[in-house]
Every structure is written in structure tokens, then in C-alpha cells.
């Protein structure tokens, strides 16, 4: 499951990069910025979920 997450984030990053270029070339800078922001928010949501998992395991492991 985990490595798949790595590839998912890489795919989102590349997709947003391509979309950004396409939209910029099409003259819609604001929409390009919007797609970058939404891509970032999606990736951030995934990463925050994984970070909370990490904190829980460390908390139970080291009984912090």
C-alpha cells in the first residue's frame, strides 16, 4: 500500500505540472494557479493522514 502512495503523489505532481503548462500557454494563468493549488491540497490531505498515522504509531511505540 505504502509505495503506491509515493507513486500517486508523483502522478499528481506531474499531472498538475502538465496542466499548469497547458493552461499558461492557453493564456489562463488564474486557472493554472487554481489547478496547482487544488493539486497541492489533495496531496497535503494524503500526507497529513499519513503523518497522523506516524504520530499514532510513535505514540504507542514509545508510550509518549
Amino acid at each position, binding site marked *: 500500500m*505504502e*509505495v503506491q*502512495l*509515493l*507513486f500517486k*503523489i*508523483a502522478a*499528481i*505532481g*506531474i499531472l*498538475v*505540472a502538465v496542466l*499548469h503548462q497547458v493552461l499558461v500557454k492557453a493564456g489562463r494563468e488564474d486557472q493554472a494557479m487554481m489547478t*496547482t493549488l487544488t493539486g*497541492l491540497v489533495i*496531496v*497535503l490531505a*494524503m*500526507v497529513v493522514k*499519513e*503523518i497522523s*498515522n*506516524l*504520530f499514532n*504509531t*510513535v*505514540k504507542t*511505540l*514509545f*508510550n*509518549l
Partner: protein
Amino acid sequence: MEIVQIIGIAFVATFIVVLLRQYKPEYTIHISIIAGIIIFGLVVFKLSAIIELLQTLSNKLGVNAKFFAILIKITGIAYLSEFAVNICKDSGESAIAAKVELGSKILIVSMSIPILGALLDTMASILP
């Protein structure tokens, strides 16, 4: 065998970071965080086995259980703060990394006060 997995994941993550850095540098931090979490997830069971072994050893040797718990807590804090410090340094924010380091040092010292107290008591009892 896990070492091959760890090295594989590290290379894949590094390759993705290098690829993404020229297009969208904002995503590189997320990739390194996720790679760190995955690698930690691989070795977390061995770590808990080690901690249980140390627990049984310390009970056998008669070490005060409270001190051992504090030691384990301190290792946990040290690991987490090192994780955060390196992530901040990778993304170029060494000032934030220094603040995290300062905070973790203060937390560790404040947690080890009872141990220092017990040490002083034993020394006082030994000295005439």
C-alpha cells in the same frame, strides 16, 4: 532482506524528487515525508521488539521502571524531532529546523529532571 526494500524505496523517492524539482518543487517535501514514513513503517515492528527486550532486561536488572519509561519517551521525542528537523532542512528552512531542535532539547531536559534528582540523591548518600 528489508534493507533492500528500504534502499529501493529511498532510490525511487529520490528519483521522483529530482524529477519533480524542476517542474513543481512544492511536491518534493511531500514525497520525502511519505518516503520517511514508509521506511519507518518497515522497521517499526523490529523497534517495538527491541523496546520490549530492553524493558524485560531493565526489570530483571532492577532498574527503576519510571526511569526506563522516561528513557523510552526521550528516544521517541528525539526521533520525531530529528524527523522534522531533517524535513525542514531539506526544504531549505534551517531557521525552523533550529527552533524545532531547541524545543525538543528543552523537552528532553525537562523530562530528565527526575532522573537527575535521583542521581544527586544516590551521590549524596554515597559521599560521607
